[in-house]
């Protein structure tokens, strides 16, 4: 997180306000990307001559997160949860509706297209479909060399040499620069896409479902390649995928999205071993597990009923409540804040707890200044909860119901 962005927290004597913006110790690196309250609404227009805006698809609705330098944040969720939109916002393929995206002292959200150009060198993208993301009428040399030419990073004479180097890095034959995409298999095409993304030596790579279009045996090759690339060049990744196992394998940090919001974010261990949000728990229990099934019995599977509600008219309060087995009155009235509950763990749920240990009474009610049904309590004073992109060094301990710090 950059210093410029520390917001003026009303410093009450209470712990929560006194949150420094830097990580508590040196074990975690500085953030390279710091996203705050990012929103993207797509207008829905009426048919007819005067195309009035009759609503908004709230694809991304106020999300905050950080990606560490050389780190990897995984973004998971069902289709329509806004994970791909987030990726496209960060690469500015879409213009955000509101919010900021701080990258090396620049706010990517407000830069003009002209000012954005040099930044595009730093933030590159790998696309899902290796068939439609490569121009079939260009040779691989042209495809991988174009970023080099556009940004004039190497003199024209050396473009070809650099292309060969890049092809070698991603495990393709460097002499194949003259071939067309149709001469390559799916996995090889994805490698070409990766070579193109690496051409400008970006600091941040947004990988949008980079392996989901590939065959199983090829997926592992590409995941290993991405990992090598990350270790060798120290590139930070925003890794968007719906496959929880792949994300767990690649990302030390994971954010779970539902209907445009982050419902849980934390370190790999916290999210996978100690998931506190019912949606995360449902996702984890729904993903089939080969080894578990092989050795006898599958894990308890939570069956979510119905579909994701429409993002045009999302449910009030907690967006997950229509499919949640824990939902009570407060869930419809109050939106749960994304509350930090551990050194590197945040969750947005009124009844946050590990599976099967959910509290009877909403943990958030005293913080929000409401009674257990979610009605505002005149006597109570809401605690000012921070919505910082990163993690603070104090958090709300769910057991003791008080703020603690390391």
């Amino acid at each position, binding site marked *: 997180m950059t210093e410029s962005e520390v917001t003026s927290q009303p410093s009450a004597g209470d712990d929560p306000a006194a949150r420094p913006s830097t990580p508590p110790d040196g074990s975690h690196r500085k953030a390279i990307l710091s996203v705050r309250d990012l929103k993207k609404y797509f207008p829905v227009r009426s048919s007819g001559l005067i195309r009035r805006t009759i609503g908004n698809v709230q694809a991304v609705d106020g999300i905050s997160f950080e990606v560490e330098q050389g780190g990897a944040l995984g973004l998971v969720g069902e289709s329509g949860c806004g994970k791909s939109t987030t990726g496209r916002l960060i690469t500015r393929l879409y213009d955000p509706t509101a919010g900021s995206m701080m990258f090396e002292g620049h706010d990517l959200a407000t830069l003009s297209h002209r000012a954005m150009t040099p930044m595009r060198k730093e933030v590159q993208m790998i696309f899902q479909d290796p068939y439609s993301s490569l121009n079939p009428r260009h040779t691989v040399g042209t495809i991988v060399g174009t970023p080099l030419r556009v940004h004039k990073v190497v003199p024209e004479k050396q473009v070809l040499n650099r292309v060969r180097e890049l092809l070698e890095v991603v495990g393709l034959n460097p002499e194949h620069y003259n071939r067309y995409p149709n001469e390559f298999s799916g996995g090889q095409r994805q490698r070409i896409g990766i070579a193109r993304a690496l051409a400008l030596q970006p600091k941040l790579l947004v990988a949008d479902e980079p392996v989901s279009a590939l065959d*199983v045996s090829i997926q592992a090759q590409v995941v290993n390649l991405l990992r090598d690339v990350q270790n060798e060049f120290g590139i930070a990744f925003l890794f968007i995928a719906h496959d929880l196992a792949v994300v767990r394998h690649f990302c030390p940090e994971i954010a779970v999205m539902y209907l445009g919001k982050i419902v849980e974010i934390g370190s790999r261990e916290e999210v996978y071993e100690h998931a506190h949000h019912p949606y995360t728990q449902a996702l984890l229990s729904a993903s089939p597990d080969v080894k578990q099934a092989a050795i*006898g019995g*599958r894990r308890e599977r939570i069956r979510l009923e119905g579909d994701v509600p429409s993002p045009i008219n999302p449910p009030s309060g907690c967006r997950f409540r229509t499919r949640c087995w824990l939902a009570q009155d407060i869930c419809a009235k109050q939106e749960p804040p994304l509350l930090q509950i551990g050194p590197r763990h945040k969750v947005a749920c009124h009844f946050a707890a590990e599976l099967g240990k959910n509290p009877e009474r909403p943990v958030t009610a005293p913080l929000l200044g409401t009674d257990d049904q979610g009605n505002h309590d005149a006597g109570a004073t809401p605690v000012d909860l921070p919505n910082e992109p990163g993690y603070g060094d104090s958090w709300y301990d769910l057991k003791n119901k008080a703020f603690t710090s390391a």
Partner: protein
Amino acid sequence: MTQTNEPVPQREAGYVSEPTDGAGTDAPFLVVEDLTVRFPTADGMVQAVSDLSYSVAQGKTLGIVGESGSGKSVSSLAVMGLHDAKRTQMSGSIRVGGKEVLGLSNDKMRRIRGREVAMIFQDPLTALHPFYKVGVQISEAYQAHHDVSRSKARTKAIEMLDRVGIPQARTRVDDYPHQFSGGMRQRAMIAMALVNDPSLLIADEPTTALDVTVQAQILDLLQELQKDFNSAIIIITHDLGVVAEMADEVMVMYAGRAVEYGTTRQILTHPEMPYTWGLLSSVPDVTADPEARLIPIKGNPPSLLKPPSGCAFHPRCPHMDKVPGDLCQTTLPDLTVAQHAEGGHVKRCHLPDPSAIYEQEILPEIAPDLVELVVNDELPAETGTGLVEDSPSDVVLPKER
């Protein structure tokens, strides 16, 4: 067409020598023998499926696993009789309920298709007709095999939609496919496939296009319906996790051939073919060590225009050096009884001692915590079969939206 004198060892449940009428006997409902499917193309003959034999009994589920181009879809399209006879060369035998269906005329096939064998496709949006109401498409499938009035067929459609869990089936029956979500479309497809109460259901990647939570719903639904209708199911997938949860038996296919075939438990705990090992180790696991490197299968799936000589997997196989001579390059291995044979487990591989390689080299890499259990054969006896009864899903969900 019914030849059984070939090197493939007879699997107990897998073969019947005499055509039977299927009903009342233990004979498998579907028996495929020596099926070969070839497509002549401008570039040469594509040998999509070679000498494939398998069977599925009523109430059982067979999982067919393989990469794209391994012939898993082509073989099941042959069962449905959906290959263009003019452009396809087929040989072997496919018996549905004791009747030979390979080579049947289109008219005769039409009586079987939908009624005895039905299919669910991967992409429900392209498999449903966008111009017709969902209910009309389902009742049309019903009327094709039953001489009933339109209103009766419509009632049947509503009943089926309700059965597969579409809320307010009475009103949704008049919706068009685009008004359904992905999961609901797949449910509608299942309703359409089951409307004639088929004895065999072929599901070709039924959940690949769906999210994990919806996938779980659909898989549960298929299992429930199987219990009710006692139908045989073939589930075609590349996802071993889906197979692990659904199938009683698994057939692993590579380059148009079965390379390993056995009970799900056998295949997942004692696989003996390097390709199956590769599939198991290249998939990350939600419980595996995240820092461990994935072990991919090197190279790419072969072209079926010019499949590799000998064992089709040999160019990608890391264990070839353990086979004496150049056997792998020159000779196609037969399907032979597996070392750790149980329940008719067969594999197609020259490796002399695959079980030892698996236990000493492969398993420690992919599941170190399981080595002891597998080696000592101490795995828990029963595999999971269904929903855990008291899972949180039993709690009544809020109905208002």
